[in-house]
C-alpha cells in the first residue's frame, strides 16, 4: 500500500521548546490513525506543521509523493489536505451552508477576473459546490440548520460543522484535532459514523483525541506522542495497556 502522507525527520522548535523532534509518520489510505499523548505533547503542532500554519525546521512532508513542506498553507489544502481545528475556527459571520461553501478545493469565485470574464462558469461551479455542501450537511445531519449563522449552533453542532467544512475539500488526507472534545449524545454518534465513512472512501485519516473510547472504537491504529517525539505506534489496545505510556500520559 502506498502511503498518502509521509513524514520523515520532522523537526520544529520554538526557542527552547521542542514541538517536533525527528518525527516519522505515514498515513495510509482508508485507515484511521489515532494520535494520542498528554497535553503539550505536540499533537496540534504536528497538524500545524503538516498543514503549513508554521514552517518546519527540518524534515520532509509528502502528500501522494508530492512535497508539501515549503508550500504555503493554501497550496497544501488545494493539493488535497484538509484539517479541523481544536478551537473550531468557524466563520461566525457566515451561515452553516456558507461555511461549507468556502471549503471546496477549487473555488472560482475568489478571482475577480474570472468573475468578470466567466460569470456563467463561476455560477455553474457554485451550483455544484452547493449540491455537494447540501450532501455533506445531510450526512452530518445539519440540513435543518443550513441557513443558521454558525455561531448560533450548539457546541456539538459547531464541531460537526468544522468537520463538514473540512469534508468539502474531498481530501486525500484528513486531520481531525479533538473532534469529540465537548461533544456528546447524538453528535457523538454522527461524528463517529462520518469519520468511518470518510475512511471507507479511501481517505487517510488522523485523529487527535483524548477520548479513549472514541479512539479505541474508531481507530485502526494508535500513535503515541510525547515531548515532540513519536514514542510508539500500534494497536490502540496495546498502547493503552502499556504502563510506561500510561504513566507518561497521566504524569507521575
Amino acid at each position, binding site marked *: 500500500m502506498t502511503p498518502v502522507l509521509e513524514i520523515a525527520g520532522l523537526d520544529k522548535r520554538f526557542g527552547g521548546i521542542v514541538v517536533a523532534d525527528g518525527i516519522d509518520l505515514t498515513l495510509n489510505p482508508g485507515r484511521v490513525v489515532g494520535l494520542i499523548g498528554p497535553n503539550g505533547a505536540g499533537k496540534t503542532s504536528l497538524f500545524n506543521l503538516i*498543514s503549513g*500554519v508554521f514552517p518546519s525546521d527540518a524534515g520532509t512532508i509528502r502528500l501522494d509523493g508530492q512535497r508539501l513542506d515549503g508550500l*504555503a*498553507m*493554501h*497550496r497544501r*489544502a*488545494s493539493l488535497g489536505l*484538509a*484539517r479541523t*481545528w481544536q478551537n473550531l*475556527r*468557524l*466563520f*461566525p*459571520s*457566515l*451561515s*452553516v*451552508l*456558507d*461555511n461549507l*461553501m*468556502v*471549503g*471546496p*478545493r477549487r*473555488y*472560482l*469565485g*475568489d*478571482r*475577480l477576473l474570472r*468573475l468578470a470574464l466567466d460569470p456563467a462558469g*463561476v*455560477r455553474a461551479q*457554485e451550483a455544484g459546490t452547493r449540491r455537494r455542501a*447540501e450532501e455533506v450537511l445531510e450526512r452530518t445531519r445539519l*440540513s*435543518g440548520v*443550513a*441557513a443558521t*449563522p454558525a455561531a448560533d449552533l450548539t457546541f456539538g453542532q459547531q464541531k460537526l460543522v468544522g468537520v463538514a*467544512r473540512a469534508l*468539502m*475539500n474531498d481530501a486525500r488526507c484528513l486531520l481531525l484535532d479533538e473532534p469529540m472534545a465537548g461533544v456528546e449524545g447524538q453528535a457523538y454518534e454522527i461524528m463517529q459514523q462520518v469519520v468511518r465513512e470518510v475512511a471507507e472512501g479511501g481517505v487517510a485519516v488522523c485523529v487527535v483525541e483524548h477520548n479513549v473510547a472514541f479512539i479505541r472504537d474508531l481507530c485502526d491504529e494508535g500513535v503515541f506522542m510525547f515531548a515532540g517525539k513519536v514514542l510508539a505506534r500500534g494497536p490502540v489496545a496495546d498502547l493503552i495497556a502499556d504502563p510506561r505510556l500510561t504513566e507518561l500520559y497521566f504524569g507521575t
Partner: protein
Amino acid sequence: MDYLITLAIMIGLSVALASSFNLIIGYAGLVSIAHPVFYAIGAYVSALLARDLGLPVPLAMLCGALAAAAASAAVALPSLRVSGDYLLIASIGFQLGVLEAIKNVSVTGGAGGLTNIPAFLVQDGGKGAYAALVIAFAALTVWLNWRIAHGPYGRALSAMRDDETAFAGLGRNAVAMKVAVFAFGSGIAGLAGALYAHYFRFVTPEQFEILQSAALLTMVVVGGVRTTWGPVLGAVLLQALPQAITFVDLPPAILGPLQGLLFTGLVLVFMVLRPQGLIAAGEAWQPAKKYSAKTRGEA
C-alpha cells in the same frame, strides 16, 4: 447651471471614491487610508499622457486607471506578504513619497500644479454629458461593489475577515484576494482621478494629501462601512453640505472655518450618537438572492 453640474461631478467622483474605498477597508478589511494617492496617480498619468504624448483622452484615462491599479498592487503585494499591519505604513509612505515627488518634478508642474490638461467632452456645451458620464461611472462602481460583496467573492472576503488562518487552511489564497481587491478599488480611484483631471483641467498635489484621506474615511464611516448605500450617502452628504452653506451669504473669512467646523462637528456627533454610521451593516454576510441559503429553507 454650471455650478450644479460641477457639484454633480464632484458628488459622483466622491461616491465612486467612497464606494471603492469601502470595498478595501470595509469588505476586505484592509487597513489603508492612502486611497487619494491612487486618485492622484490616475489624474496625473492620464493628464500627462493626453497633454504631452497626445494620447486620446479616453485611452489616457484607461492608462491612468491601470497605472493606479498597478501601483497599488506593487505597494500591497510585498507588505501583505509580510503581514496585514504593514499595509497601513507602506501605503502612507507611498502616498507621502508620490506627493513629494509630484511637488519636486518639473514634468508634473511641481507644487504649483499641472495646467492645460486637455479637455474632454466639455467643449460646446458638453458639460452635462460629462456629468452624466461621471454619474454613470459612479453608479457602475456602486453596482460592481454590490455584486462583488454579495457574491462568492464577498462570501470569501467575509470568511477571510473572520479567520484568515482557517480560510487559508481551506485552500483559499488570502494574499492574492487582498491584492486583487486593493488593485481593483485603487483602479476605480485612478479612473475617478482621470475623470477629475479632464474636467477641471488643473490638478495640484495638495488635493491628494492626508486631509483627503480623512475626508474619504469620514464619508465611509459616517455613511456606514460595509454597506452598499452607506458610502454613497456619506459622499453625497459630506460633499453637498459644505457647498450648501456657501449659499448663505457670508464673508469668505467666516465661510472657510465654518465649513471645517461643520465637517468636524458632524464626525464628532456621529462618533457619539451613531458609531455604526447612518446605515448599519449586519453582523452576517448577506448573499445576493441567487446565492442565498434560504431558498431551500428550514425544510
